[in-house]
């Protein structure tokens, strides 16, 4: 996700902070995981994983990723697909604007004076 504000750059990632996190088990699907790894922005994912303290075993750069390493892949699966922020915020790194998360649902709406 990215900040929907006009003028916020398309590629500015959102930081994440959490007061409540849960882990929901999901069936491990190697093909889907590889496909998603190819589509996401690794740097933001790694940074978010670090903030949520699930980055152990996950490389900081995609180059260091070894798709054949099953343990590493399963840790990525856990961080990407199983860990869920229930309560917290997404933070725009450019403006500091916080987008609250409640019941796992991030609220990305801007107020009318921000449009």
């Amino acid at each position, binding site marked *: 996700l990215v900040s*929907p504000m006009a003028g916020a750059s398309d590629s500015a990632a*959102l930081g994440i902070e959490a007061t409540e996190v849960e882990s*929901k088990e999901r069936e491990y699907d190697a093909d*889907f995981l590889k496909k998603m790894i190819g*589509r996401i922005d690794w740097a933001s994912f790694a940074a978010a994983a670090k903030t949520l303290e699930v980055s152990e075993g996950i490389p900081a750069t995609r180059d260091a990723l070894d798709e054949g390493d099953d343990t590493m892949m399963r840790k990525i699966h856990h961080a990407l*697909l199983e860990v869920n922020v229930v309560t917290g915020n997404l933070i725009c790194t450019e403006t500091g604007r916080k987008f609250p998360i409640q019941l796992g649902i991030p609220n*990305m709406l801007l107020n009318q004076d921000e*449009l």
Partner: protein
Amino acid sequence: RGSGRGREGRGAAGTMLFLILFVNAVGRYSFRQAELRALLEMEGVTDAPMVWTRDGDTEGKDSAFMEIELPSEDVARRVAQRSVCIKGIYHPWGRGKTQEECFEGVKAFGAANMEPYCREGSTFKINMYSYGGKIDTAASKVVIERAFDAVPFKGQVVLDKTKKGVKAQSADKRASHQFWYCEDTMKEAGEQTAVKGSCTGALRGVWFCREVSTGGREVLADFDLKQREYLCSTSMTAENSFLVANFAHASAGKLLLDPFCGSASLLVAAAKFGCYTMGGDIDLRVIRGKEKNKQMPSHCRYARTVDEVDITPFDNFRQYGLKEPLDIVRCDNARPTWRLGSLFDAIICDPPYGVRAGARKTGCNKETKPIPEELREGHIPGTIAYGISDVLSDLLDMSAKYLAVRGRLVFWLPTTPDYKVEDLPQHPCMEMLYNCEEVVTAKWQRRLITMKKTREPQEGERAVCAIKEEDEGIEAAHDNFAVKYFGKQGADRRDDSKESTRSKRKKRAAELAAEGRQGLGWQEGQMENFQEKDGQT
């Protein structure tokens, strides 16, 4: 259409001939062939020769049957099992214009080809189906005698409850080999009427076939909205949801987005086919959830605070044992908040058009004042009406950006009989594949539209509409749809942007008092309270 096929019913290119019986889709006949073609695409089959059985019926307007050549029985089975338009797919052993011709064909099919399905120890049943006519007991007996004459049946007859292409109540009681005697007798105006109950009437086609597979309609009973745990007024029926999932090529390993997900009814069907799903909606109440309070009417049960939430769209996935969505996000599709291009394999939706839910985007008609810092948290952003044409343009722009190349966009569009193809905005990266019309009433229809992303958008490429705002008096058939559907007063009542809820409620109460009726006053009051108290979450 005689018996020009090879002995085993094989075409020149090594394909097999199949007979498909479709549901009688009143008002939406074009969905059937379109869904079939979409499912064949999933099998990599794009040029299967297909012929509706009524002469000259290229679009399947009058026919129930279609003859089609497919590469294999496996393809036929996989396609049928997903389809909600197909009742059954059969391999004809004999066919013709008369019963005589049909059974001559069966004999010519050859005992060697029939043997695997007639073995001793197997169970079988012969079903009768007539499109437009009736096969009574006497006629059935004739058919059965001819069948036994032509086919070396050695197995045991099991009279299960199979009929009209629908499975018997209990699958394990169904005979292992199902045979079908099919007649196409539908009458046209001015044509000689087929004598009811007789096999010697004006038949258009006769087939005797072995069932390869029933269609995918059984699943609809399990997913019926009547048993759905979490519903809202915009939940899509099971049949329509599965149709969308088929057009979108939903399958295992894919990621689908519904940017107007509501109660996630479309995502549930996609998840049934094994997809990972994500949803977005601007209306927090619908995606956050409801409280289970039996005292209050259902539309008031949206939870006012996070603590009151008892049931959410996620519960629908749990109900059916399906993968839950990766995420549901509150967002405004006029200001897309997704970051990465080429993220989704498909985007499916039923955008709100002001009929059962108003379409809104963030914004304010009045001059905006800065919001005081102390009120920022929990402030509900103001929203304004989001016209259908804008919804469509934004949807195309979003799809062009966030779909993977060759990914699909599938959406419903309500419109009027004035619809013309120029009404739709176009995007250089989105190719129209299917545009199926469903006539709902004389006043309105809806279309199920499927588009494919053909390439990545270049800088600045946007959706373009042939009809521009400046063209006075010209509007797309779907513009102001709520007005056309409800009439001006009704539409105004639903258009929140025109006046505040409180003054509308007062007006409504006055209207009803004038009529001598009491309104649902306390309920409307409750709704208003909900909207105000929402800010306290």
